[in-house]
């Protein structure tokens, strides 16, 4: 299963105006898809006989117009930021980590194991150790597709899908056997889960400092997520690894010719991605539940892919995308209380949003590539072949902006 189409944005190698052009294009595409989603949502709301304005404003009212609402939104966004960053890191290197799902499950197991085996450690140290254990768990699970890709050429999409399946069973085994709860109240039918973690190993609520209800489970993990976003941004934009990763992602051939060891870059990216994925489940088990339950929240990894797309794989964009996602998710509560529209409407809205984002970004990317090709043609000797068709017609994205850039270079700049 080849994924040639996956080449990440090539903005890095463009000249400044083109970079700006790309950003504007992305923003327009995002606004357009948000418009499409809200419009389609309005039609559905009208079909239910309610006013779209009223429904949308109630969603905002429950998400951003009160301290509680904001607390819930940020708590929902926290794991999504980690998971979208994990996806984005691999994406920069031209790889698709759809195994975040499995990586965070394994990380929850290793974190729960650390909580239970090392519970004697004093509070703050225990939390740090547990977070490290989680990151290690995610890294181990992410290392497998990375190593297999480099050593055997096995495509990471297939291996990560399979590893997701294995991780589900692994977690089920862990809470059925080695980590099964031992202190269940006698005579009570308790859901399958691990023991409650020691009090010191939990991450406390910080919401109450800001007037947010403790029910939101807002914790300093949110700020850790922001920190991770900044770190990833720094890594990609300001370090050698990030530069080489982008080179590998946009043109493996040129990167290799330039002396970059592609395999080592790919494995390192997978390890970083796995470490980020490892933190996805921590909000859930450390700040919220206090144990690893059987009915853990699933699909955070897959949702992270959606959020990564929404944020165009840009770390800062991802933070905003996760918050937008959180606002919509919080809308479920608004609908339940304020409206007859079923709460499942929100999931449809998110679905339409992500579908239109994927398509409009693709259109924007193609338009941009076509325009750059044109410009390259004007600069070089390609006037005749580039044609004037804005929509790229049969040539389209096969010729990416990068190639256009290279051709322009050959052309005589």
């Amino acid at each position, binding site marked *: 299963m080849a994924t040639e*189409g996956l080449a990440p944005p090539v903005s890095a190698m463009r000249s400044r105006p083109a970079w700006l052009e790309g950003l504007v294009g992305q923003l327009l595409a995002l606004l357009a898809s948000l418009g499409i989603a809200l419009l389609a949502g309005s039609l559905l709301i009208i079909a239910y006989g309610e006013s779209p304005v009223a429904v949308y404003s109630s969603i905002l009212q429950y998400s951003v117009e009160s301290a509680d609402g904001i607390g819930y939104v940020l708590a929902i966004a926290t794991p999504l930021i980690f998971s979208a960053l994990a996806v984005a890191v691999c994406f920069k290197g031209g790889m698709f980590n759809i195994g975040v799902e499995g990586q965070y499950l394994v990380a929850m197991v290793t974190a729960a194991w650390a909580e239970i085996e090392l519970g004697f450690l004093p509070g703050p140290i225990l939390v740090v150790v547990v977070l490290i254990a989680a990151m290690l768990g995610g890294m181990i699970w992410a290392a497998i597709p990375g190593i*297999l890709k480099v050593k055997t050429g096995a495509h990471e999409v297939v*291996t990560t*899908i*399979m590893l997701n399946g294995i991780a589900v069973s692994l977690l089920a085994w862990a809470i059925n056997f080695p980590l099964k709860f031992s202190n269940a109240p006698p005579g009570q039918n308790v859901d399958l889960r691990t023991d409650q973690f020691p009090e010191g190993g939990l991450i406390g609520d910080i919401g109450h400092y800001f007037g947010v209800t403790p029910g939101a489970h807002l914790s300093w993990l949110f700020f850790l997520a922001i920190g991770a976003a900044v770190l990833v941004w720094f890594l990609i934009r300001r370090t050698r690894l990030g530069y080489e990763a982008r080179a590998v992602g946009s043109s493996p051939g040129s990167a290799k010719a330039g002396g970059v060891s592609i395999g080592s870059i790919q494995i390192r990216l997978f390890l970083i991605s796995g470490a980020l994925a490892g933190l996805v489940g921590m909000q859930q088990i450390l700040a919220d539940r206090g144990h690893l339950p059987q009915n853990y929240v699933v699909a955070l990894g*897959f949702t992270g892919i959606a959020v990564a797309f929404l944020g165009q794989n840009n770390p800062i964009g991802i933070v905003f995308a996760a918050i937008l996602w959180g606002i919509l998710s919080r809308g479920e509560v608004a609908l339940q209380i304020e409206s007859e529209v079923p709460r*499942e409407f929100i999931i449809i809205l998110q679905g339409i949003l992500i579908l239109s984002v994927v398509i409009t970004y693709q259109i924007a990317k193609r338009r941009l590539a076509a325009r750059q090709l044109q410009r390259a043609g004007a600069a070089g000797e390609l006037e005749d072949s580039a044609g004037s068709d804005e929509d790229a017609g*049969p040539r389209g994205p096969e010729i990416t902006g990068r190639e256009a850039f290279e051709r322009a270079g050959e052309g005589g700049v």
Partner: protein
Amino acid sequence: MPFTDIAVALQISFTYFTILYLTGLGGLFSERSGIVNIGLEGLMIIGTVTGAFGARFFTDTIDLGTPWGPILGLLFGALCGAIFASIHAVATITFRVDHIVSGVVINLVAVGLARFLSYAFFNGQATQSDPGGPHLARLDIPFLSSLPGGLDRAFQSLSPMVLVAAFMVVPVWYALNRLRWGLRLRSCGENPEATRSLGVSVPLYRYQGVLLSGAFAGLSGAFLAAEVIGNWREGQTLGLGFIALAALILSNWNPIRLMFFAWLFGFAVAIPLRLNDAPVISALPPQFIRMIPYIVTIVAIAGFVGRVRPPAAAGKAYEGGGGT
């Protein structure tokens, strides 16, 4: 160890074979035409909710009774699967969105859409429908169902859909290998440029491949919900769409080999359900047995045993004559 247990495990494995084979065939049509489809799980999910609804609707509400009600229910699931797959088709073929991206989105959207549909279908129940929905009469396979030694159990009271799935290999193989349509579909997945130069519309065939994948996966989901379980429950596909994908990869995208792997993985799913007390198996936690299909696939895709070769152009955006 009594043969009865093995026979019952076999019987269960036939049911899972049906699910995995139908879904796998769906993936086969799509990927043979050049469109990678990791959205099989999502297509199945749509099949489960619409199939469970369809079976009830046609049997009770429209009052067609059995067998026509359940049959139309299954076909309704297939139809809805195809309609839902058209999203993947439009995204990947017309808009040339990356196939994996679109597949992930399909899986994500399916979960929400299923819940939404369920809310509309089943009087506000968003995560399950009433149990005990109508289904086709079970049948015993002649001759085999009178085998001695307890083995007869394996071939008794099977859904007719098991036979439909098993015999599906004949028309599928014939269509792909003998019909002009199938040869063209496959060449779209191997070498779209050459196919186009022969005057064949690559997008047209790819659309057919993807819609067929939706129909097959939808049918499989409808079978799971309406025939096997008897109602719709959220999450009842349990990643079977991904196991079907694994079987498809191991089969080298070949409908005959796919039968074997679909059955083998179906048996692996059945073991924890019935053969827990058997020697060797009893020593293994059931969760480990559920990992087998995935592990086997990783080993195969990494090239440790044998070699898998996907259709050459699968996953690549094709520029020729898009948008038609």
